[in-house]
């Protein structure tokens, strides 16, 4: 019997529709995987009973002919999405004991489409991090191991590290992520899966714990481009409860996967090939360009001159917004409260105990850059530069249809590495942050393995609200990459991959 956890969502939908499998069977396979792979620490809250209940209801709906687009598909939910009746933590101690009385729009949309939730996935605290090591509930382990040191625990990337690890480890068929500066794309790259941050405004932010409101965007993570397209189709849509949600219809993203990219112009930004870019990353990028040429697209060198200012700009704008967004965690109404003799003392004790070091650092930076006397030099200037970065992309998209870049400067690194100073960690998002600042859709797909046997991703960037072109190109690249590698812990695929002649390896 096929291991049901290895199916893609597309395959599972087909087999569910044909009655070959039930949602309960499919869900049970995943709840068992969730229990078996608990060592990855991918989940903060597992809800297997709830999942099986939802699966039974799903089977009943299907029997009545009321199947939604994701009917019976077991998914993981990043624990930044508020879920009615299920504890929501944002991986922070400050939300201790908080169970939302409401459901985020995105997860409500998924539920409406028939999806089953396995539980709440681990992440960096308040989505602040690139290695999933800032979670109050401990780090998430990447299911992938390096050839050189198979015993070494690697990070899954962040902040959607639990999402990426769970999907890569075949615990969930797909997962929700959120991306503020690369939090979907970088972990997707580190874990060898597909993830897309759609255009800002495509998915509602209502009910998602806010980090940086002008950048936060929900998106799907799954093992194939088509699965991501299906998931995004269910997650997206205008929401009157989010004033920044775009009043646009949701296209049939999966239908965009025509396999035909002939005549498309693909921008290759020269600024993304800085001195010191790892040879492996450079090579896989070149390989991606070759695949696109082979498929009839034309690579065009472009310039995005303000790229080098993106990281500092982001680390002004995002902390500024976070310093304000996180002010509500004060111990007064919900979550952690550490009593004090005065109100100020209660604030100080509560917030000191409730927030981890990275969150505190960003609140401090954000408070500083918004302060009287510093606002113009930092925040106001950063907003101007942000516009210039967006203009870079606008100009580029006058001559190209999509842009191809590496997703991250490296493959996954060890838990505990890159922590000497915060900037080293922040540099992980150097290729994803400009897209976030410009609000554009960005997709990461696995393109191959490093010499050390770890996945490397490539990023496709599209015009605003043109996820369809991104998906179309991603579909073609996915086929060319033929990335069938899987983490060693995922035994059957590993066996299949080896028998298939190690396709997708050997970059």
């Amino acid at each position, binding site marked *: 019997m096929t291991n049901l956890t290895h199916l893609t969502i597309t395959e599972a939908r087909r087999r569910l529709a044909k009655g070959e499998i039930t949602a309960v069977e499919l869900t049970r396979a995943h709840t068992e995987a969730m229990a078996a792979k608990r060592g990855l620490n991918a989940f903060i809250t597992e809800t297997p009973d709830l999942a099986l209940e939802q699966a039974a209801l799903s089977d009943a709906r299907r029997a009545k002919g009321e199947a939604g687009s994701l009917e019976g598909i077991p998914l993981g939910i990043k624990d930044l*999405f*508020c879920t009615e009746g299920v504890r*929501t933590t*944002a991986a922070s101690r400050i*939300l201790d004991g*908080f169970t*939302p*009385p*409401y459901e*985020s729009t995105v997860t409500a949309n998924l539920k409406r489409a028939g999806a089953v939730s396995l539980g709440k996935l681990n992440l960096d605290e308040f989505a602040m991090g690139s290695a999933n090591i800032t979670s109050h509930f401990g780090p998430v382990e990447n299911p992938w191991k390096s050839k050189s040191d198979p015993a070494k625990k690697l990070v899954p990337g962040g902040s959607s590290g639990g999402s990426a690890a769970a999907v890569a480890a075949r615990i969930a068929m797909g997962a929700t992520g959120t991306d503020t500066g690369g939090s979907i794309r970088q972990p997707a790259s580190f874990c060898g899966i597909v993830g897309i941050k759609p255009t800002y405004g495509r998915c509602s*932010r*209502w*009910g*998602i*714990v*806010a980090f*940086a*409101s*002008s950048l936060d965007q929900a998106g799907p993570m799954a093992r194939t481009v088509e699965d991501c397209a299906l998931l995004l189709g269910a997650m997206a849509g205008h929401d*009157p*409860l*989010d*004033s*920044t949600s775009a009043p646009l219809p949701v296209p049939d993203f999966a239908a965009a996967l025509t396999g035909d990219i002939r005549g498309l112009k693909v921008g290759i930004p020269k600024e993304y090939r800085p001195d010191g870019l790892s040879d492996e990353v450079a090579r896989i990028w070149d390989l991606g360009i070759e695949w696109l040429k082979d498929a009839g697209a034309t690579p065009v060198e472009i310039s995005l001159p303000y790229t080098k200012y993106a990281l500092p700009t982001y680390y002004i704008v995002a902390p*500024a*917004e976070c*310093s*304000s967004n*996180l*002010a*509500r965690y*004060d111990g*007064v*109404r*919900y979550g952690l409260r550490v009593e004090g003799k005065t*109100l*100020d003392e209660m*604030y100080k004790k509560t917030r000191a105990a409730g927030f981890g070091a990275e969150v505190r650092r960003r609140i401090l930076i954000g*408070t500083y850059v*918004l*302060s*009287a006397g510093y*606002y113009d030099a930092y*925040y106001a200037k950063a907003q101007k530069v942000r516009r210039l970065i967006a203009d870079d992309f606008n100009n580029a998209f006058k001559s190209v249809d999509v842009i191809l870049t590496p997703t991250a400067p490296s493959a996954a690194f060890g838990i505990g590495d890159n922590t000497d100073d915060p900037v080293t960690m922040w540099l992980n998002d150097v290729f994803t942050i400009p897209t976030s600042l410009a609000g554009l859709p960005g997709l990461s797909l696995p393109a191959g393995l490093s010499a050390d046997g770890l996945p490397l991703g490539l990023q496709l960037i599209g015009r605003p609200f043109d996820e369809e072109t991104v998906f179309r190109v991603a579909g073609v690249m996915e086929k060319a990459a033929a990335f069938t590698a899987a983490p060693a812990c995922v035994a059957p695929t590993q066996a299949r991959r080896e028998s298939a002649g190690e396709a997708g390896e050997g970059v």
Partner: protein
Amino acid sequence: MAYILQGDTGDWEVVIGLEVHAQVISNAKLFSGAATAFGAEPNSQVSFVDAGFPGMLPVINRICVEQAVRTGLGLKARINLTSVFARKNYFYADLPQGYQISQYELPIVGEGTLTIDLPDGSTKAIGIERLHLEQDAGKSLHDQHPTKSFIDLNRSGVALMEIVSKPDLRSPEEAGLYVAKLRSILRYLGTCDGNMQEGSMRCDANVSVRPKGASELRTRCEIKNVNSIRFLQQAIEYEARRHIEVYEAGGSINQETRLFDSAKGETRSMRSKEHAHDYRYFPDPDLLPLVLDPKMVETIKAGLPELPDEKKERFMGEYGLNATDAGVLVADQASAAFFESVAKGRDPKLAANWVMGDFFGALNATGRTIDDPPVTAAHLGELVDLIKDGTLSGRLAKEVFALMVETGKGPAALVEEKGLKQVTDTGAIETAIEAVMAANPDKVAEIRAGKDKLIGWFVGQVMKATQGKANPGMLNELLAKKLKG
């Protein structure tokens, strides 16, 4: 007349600017659907947005925007078609989000004008600096528990308009007139109920002084949250005298925020400039810039009611009222309407006297309101008619009016019922005069001997005999004829 404070070193002038917080009349809050009714059970009108729950987002209430535009137009102000909501960050237990959504650099309404009516009938234009929309905070209750404070979030998120004047006010009286006029305009527009007791209108005053004739502005102090016009005037006067004392003693004023203690009638320091909050304003990333459709502004403009200033002009022109009377009548829209229905087709001055005199008196005495008056406009109009056609003398009319207040009946019915009709029958009056003369021959003799002041005594006696119903004009005429005869 200029308001001048005399100090030991000379005369001083006071400079005042006001910031009025006016609660917008709307069913729902500025950024949430929660209700706004006053006096509800604590925390019964709170949405997850108002309570600052994780992942909750503000959505602008269109009605509140329209109310702000309407108010801006009523203040003859510039409407900014693009405005921006900003976050004002500070920590307090009754501020759930840790910031107040307000407007900072780009308010919805720019400069305008408010005209105050001075007691001498003249007017003075006071500049409006801006009007912006913002959300209210909740309320901290410190007296419910010995060691804890309780929080009521019913007010949290309620829409306020902050209306900022230019420093154009020069006396406590002008400040009071400004607030009264602003309240009147807001009520006309239906954008704020102006109820200071319930806190739907609150006032901060920026006060400084300078030697008479000086043109520079000196350091100001801000007196926070004054909730009545009387307290506002007391606070300004106290603060101005305090500044003068400090300056005359060789000291200097520090810019600071002060509170007015109404029990003691004095202001005291709340926080100095050094301890002022750094609010770290920045555009709220949860909200797009507010862009207004010019057509929407036009529609609101076209639907504006006649405002107090225009109405006053019209009352002076159309009814021939003086500025003071017209000003009194237009202060309240319902009073003005009441007056107009009384005055319609009648002697407007007589109508005005009755509305402002006995009728307003009756409102006070009965504690009733213009919307539920003790005497209807129609009945008061009939009473004016009965005076005008001679049925009632002024004195009788007052008697009838009192009965109208008491019974709610119309004047015609009461006149009939009580037999209060003025006697205009010459014969009846003559008979009464003759009877009084017959009973008092000595007094008749005295008058005929030249003691004219006794005529008044005779008038009184005849009135008494006719139960006051004798037409006074006819009585005087007939009496003079008979006595001299």
